[in-house]
Structures are given as structure tokens and as C-alpha cells.
């Protein structure tokens, strides 16, 4: 009996009335997520096309909007929350984010550094020697 219980999703045995309440609260969560995501996406597209904003700051703003939208998707669509059932998921996510930050940030940093310290092209080198 415990085995069959473990096989069943939480909410499997709830009464129809509870089920209805569960569905409508779930609908609310997805709808809030959709509205937030639409607002963030629209803001991103607007920021990329407007001339109102200080141009060098736009890429940073776009990155912030994207990260915010990813957070919205995680919470409202994937239901990664702070509940006790979710502790392992959150820890795995934190580790994943660490790796992603190291891979993306590290690559950009190293490659930018290499580009800056790159030996000049051969023609420029020759000019250098002639002088």
C-alpha cells in the first residue's frame, strides 16, 4: 500500500472540489507568468529599437531583462520554488548556474584578454621593425 502511495502524484486522491481549486490556482500561476514574460519580452524588443536610451547601456539592460525573464519562467512555468520538496532542485540549479557563469563569463574574459594582447597583424609588425 505504501508502494502504491509512493507511485502516485500528490493530489492524485484529492476530492473533485479540491481538484477544481488546484486547477484554477494553477491557471492563475501560469497566467501571471505569461503576463510577466510578455512584459519583459516586449521591453527587450523596445529597448533594442529605441533611440531614447543611452546606447552603450542597452546590451547590459537586455542581459538583465533576459535573466529576469528566465527567473520568471523558472518560478511560474517550471515551479522551481522554495518548498521543501524543491530543495534538491534549487541546489542543482545553483550548481548549474555556477557552471554556466564560469563557462560564459570565463570564455568572454579570456578571449577579450587574448584579443587585447594579440600581436599586431604582420604588416603592422613590419612597419614596427622598419621604424
Amino acid at each position, binding site marked *: 500500500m505504501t508502494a502504491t*502511495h*509512493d507511485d502516485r502524484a500528490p493530489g492524485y486522491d484529492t476530492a473533485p472540489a479540491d481538484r477544481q481549486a488546484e486547477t484554477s490556482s494553477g491557471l492563475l500561476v501560469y497566467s501571471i507568468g505569461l503576463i510577466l514574460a510578455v512584459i519583459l519580452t516586449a521591453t527587450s524588443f523596445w529597448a533594442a529599437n529605441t533611440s531614447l536610451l543611452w546606447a552603450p547601456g542597452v546590451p547590459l539592460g537586455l542581459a538583465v531583462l533576459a535573466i529576469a525573464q528566465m527567473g520568471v519562467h523558472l518560478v511560474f512555468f517550471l515551479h522551481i520554488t522554495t518548498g521543501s520538496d524543491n530543495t534538491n532542485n534549487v541546489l542543482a540549479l545553483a550548481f*548549474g548556474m555556477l557552471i554556466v557563469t564560469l563557462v*560564459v563569463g570565463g570564455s568572454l574574459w579570456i578571449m577579450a584578454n587574448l584579443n587585447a594582447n594579440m600581436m599586431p597583424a604582420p604588416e603592422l609588425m613590419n612597419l614596427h621593425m622598419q621604424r
Partner: protein
Amino acid sequence: MSIAATTLDAAHEALPDSEAGPAPKRIVVAYGFWIFLLSDIVMFSAFFASYAVLSSATAGGPSSAALFNQTRVAIETACLLASSYTCGMMSLAIKSENRIGTYVGAAVTFMLGAAFLTLEINEFASMAAQGATPQRSAFLSAFFTLVGCHGLHVSVGLLWLIVMMAQVAARGFRATVQRRLLCFSLFWHTLDIIWVGIFTVVYLMGIVA
């Protein structure tokens, strides 16, 4: 049985984690699949890093500003976001074991996903027609790897959705089928998260730069 299970559920909720016993299989399966999804995200992060490094290495070929069509990207984004939402509606229908709702949710999700894929294939074809193929420059290699890999994931997701609907039709809402559907919805929402990164880093930043 039903009452006993409900009290067990309640007991499961009330106990501290250390005494609650093993987690329900649904939680364990979702955790395992979440770890797979995170490894997929790590793979994509490598593609994102290579794209970001190579995005200006056009080797005299067409640049991002010349190639990208913002309207198409906006429609693609809308399709994928809406399909994420309808996938959530499908999950709710599955939870209340509503067959019609599940089929309708799956059909809408599938059509929006297919529309996204069609637009993306059109984009790739029009780029190839302009001579912007993956072998033209490092920028284009990185572009096709990143965006193509996401498109491949979407195609796999669409196939998976068809298979899952066949399972619902043949076997009904069994516990195993419900868990597979849960994994599918996690997969589909994760693809949308990756697309958020793509439309920001590839398309919008490409237009700004």
C-alpha cells in the same frame, strides 16, 4: 484506500523531512530529469560562449545586422512563449485527468511549436540563399550551431509530444504516463528559457551592435 492515502499524504506533509521517508516517485523522477535539463543548459552555455566570442568574426561575410529579421524573431518568440503557456494548460488538464483538455492543450502546443520550427527553417533557407551558410565565417558557424541545436531540441520535443499523446490514448492517465508527461512539460519550458537567451544574445544584441 482513498481516505488512507489522503491521510498518508497529510502525514507526509506534516513530518519533518528527516522523518518523512522516501519522497514520492514523481518528485524523484522530476529531480533526475531536472539534472539532465541542467546538463543540457550547460551544453548550451558553451554554445552561447562560443557565439559571444565569435559574433564579430564575420571574415568579410554578412554580419548579424544584415541577416536578421526582427519581425520574424518577434513572431517566433510569441509562438514559443504561447506554446509554453498552453503546455502549462495541458499539465493542469493532466492533473485533473481531463482527456479532452489534454488533447486540446497538446494540439495547440504542437501547432505553435511547429509554427516556430517552420519560421526558423525559412530563416535558415533564406540565409543559405544569400550565401550565409555555416562554412562562410566563424560567426555563422557559431550561429548555426547555437540556433540549430535549439531547433533540433524543439523538433525532438514535438516528436515526444506525439508519442506521449499516443500513450495517453492507448493507456490513459497511468502513473508512468503522468510522470513522462511531467518530464515533457519540464523539457518544453526549458526550451523556452534557452530561447530567451537566444533572442537576447543573438538577435537583439546583434541588431544593437
